[in-house]
Structure formats: structure tokens, C-alpha cells
């Protein structure tokens, strides 16, 4: 795991964070629930709490789907390419590329979806929330904070690498029992075979 330069984090007096969705996106409850699950994964292992609110302008974290140039100097590039980005604390901006095919189902667990042309929304959301909390990218391939996301694959469970990183910043959730499986086997990752359904490296 790694941190942004200076190790920015949410201040001690603001550990109960609020988040809101850009009302212009008119997201369904099903989509919003995906984010709730993603926030819950980080709340489980830290003392942080995340509460959904309606006020997009005053919430700590603001979530929005945008296309192309959306005003922050980091334009999206259409289908695939960059999928999302988020800013380090205490900025709270969380942007996703509206041009992607997002899968919002919670089925499948850690495994492979049936096609390669879609991106699992919860997997990306969990990753970007890590940035919102102060984590940088990790070189551990199966960690949530690894920079790439294989299309068609669902990877939403925090690994021990992610948990260690976020707990360095905020400490542990007193109710977290500390058990977190190490990353699953990566036996297939170095095959270089991108021709299969999941384009795994």
C-alpha cells in the first residue's frame, strides 16, 4: 500500500463522513446501493462512518458520473481507458466515466463476469474510496488499490494490504476482528494470456 505525498487524511474531528450523488445524474436506488456497499467495506475495518445525504454541495464526499472534459482538468476518454478518479483527503471529489458499461449487480463475488465489455461498479467504487481516504496505488496485484481493473472481473473485497494501509491512517474499527484473508492466489497472473474471457495478465 502507499499514500499520497504528505499522507493526507481526514482530520480527527471529521471521521463521520457524508456522501451525496450529483442530482443531475438521476441515479437509481439500485446504483446508489452499490456505493453504500462499497463504503461499508471501508467502514468495517476503520473507525470511519459514511452516511448518505441529499445535499450534494455540502457533503464531504461528492459522487458523480461525467463524460469527457468535466472541469477538473482530468477529462475522461470514453469507453474503457480511464474509468474513474478520486482526489485525496479532504477534497472528497469522486468522478466516474459515464460512458462505461457499469454492472451494478452484487452477484458473482470475487470472480469473473461473463463478458469482457463491462466494468463492475462496486469494484471501481471500492478502489476510488480508497483514494478518498488517502491511499495511493499499490503494487500488490490482487489488492483493491492496484491501479488497473480487469474488465469483466469483480474484485471488491479488501485484502490485507488495503486494510493495513487504511488502518495506518485511521486505526482499526474496534468491532473489526482483524481477520482478513491474504490476497488469493495469483498463479494465473503472469501467463500473459490476454485472449481469455477476462483478459487477465
Amino acid at each position, binding site marked *: *500500500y*502507499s*499514500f*499520497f*505525498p504528505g499522507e493526507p487524511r481526514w482530520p480527527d474531528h471529521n471521521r463521520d463522513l457524508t456522501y451525496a450523488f450529483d442530482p443531475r445524474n438521476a441515479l*437509481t436506488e*439500485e*446504483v446508489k446501493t452499490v456505493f453504500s456497499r462499497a463504503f461499508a467495506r471501508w467502514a468495517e475495518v476503520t473507525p470511519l462512518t459514511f452516511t448518505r445525504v441529499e445535499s450534494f454541495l455540502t457533503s464531504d464526499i461528492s459522487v458523480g458520473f461525467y463524460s469527457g472534459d468535466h472541469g477538473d482538468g*482530468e477529462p*475522461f*476518454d*470514453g*469507453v*474503457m*481507458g*480511464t*474509468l*474513474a*478518479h*478520486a482526489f485525496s483527503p479532504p477534497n472528497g471529489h469522486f468522478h466516474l466515466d459515464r460512458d*462505461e*458499461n*457499469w*454492472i*451494478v*449487480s452484487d*452477484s458473482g463475488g470475487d470472480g469473473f*463476469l*461473463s*463478458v*469482457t*465489455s*463491462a*466494468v463492475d*461498479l462496486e469494484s*471501481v467504487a471500492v*478502489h*476510488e474510496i480508497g*483514494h478518498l481516504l488517502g491511499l*495511493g*496505488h*499499490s*503494487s*500488490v*496485484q490482487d*489488492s483493491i488499490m492496484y*491501479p*488497473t*481493473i*480487469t*474488465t*469483466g472481473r469483480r474484485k471488491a473485497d479488501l485484502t490485507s*494490504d488495503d486494510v*493495513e*494501509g487504511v488502518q*495506518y491512517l485511521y486505526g482499526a474499527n474496534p468491532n473489526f476482528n482483524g481477520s482478513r484473508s491474504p490476497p488469493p492466489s495469483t498463479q494465473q497472473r503472469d501467463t*500473459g494470456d*490476454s485472449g481469455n474471457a477476462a*483478459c487477465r*495478465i
Partner: protein
Amino acid sequence: GFYSNSSAIPPELRRNATENVWNSFLNFTGCHAGMKVNGLYKIKQYFQRFGYIPETLPRNFTDDFDDILKNAVMMYQRNFRLNITGELDELTLKHVVIPRCGVPDVVNGTSTMHGDGRRRTYEVSFAGRGPNFHAVKR
């Protein structure tokens, strides 16, 4: 679009989705230092986008495989635990074209991805004689 499952995606959109904007980089497979290849400036822009080439350099790159690109490739290969060849080999480019987060891997020339995947420091202090050894793992 949002889909409850992958089979709900219209076939025409599935085709579009496989047209990754970076797939053209695969044409650079085998490029190495000293070569000049049409369009190579685009992959320099990619590496600059994610911090591997300093932002202070202008974006009007040449098509030369110069030391700037070689260093960027090597840092990328190190971050992603690939063989450090400094060349745009097949495995490196297959990695480059994978969809990814837009947050840079390198900030101000310093990689934020530590090679061993851990960030641990050990503080050790010795105070006088006796069993006063103190160590803290962070």
C-alpha cells in the same frame, strides 16, 4: 449505462466496449530505445498522464524512443512488477492497455507504488543500559 448483469448489455455496446482507446498502443510492440515510430508520442502522453514523465515537459513529444520514454517504461515495469527491460515488450503493452484508475502512479517524479507492496518503517531507540530496547513497527 447501468446494467444489472452483463448479459443485459446490448450487443452493439459490447462491441464498442472492446474498442479500448489504448489498444492502438499494441502496435508499438517491440519498440526500444533508438527507434523512431510514427505515433510513439501518444504513448509518451499516456506515461505523462500517469506521472511517469514529468508534467513539466511539454506535451508535444517526438516519435523518438528516447531516454525519457525508456526511463518511463522502466519505472512502469518496476511498479507493475514486470520484467524491467526498458522496451515496449508484449507483456508491458498488454498491461498498459488494461482499463485503469485515472489517479497517477507517480507524483512529482516519485512513485507512490512501493516495489514490495508494503510501507513499513521501524523506529528503534536505545535508552541507557538495561532492557530499554524499544521498537515500533509502523
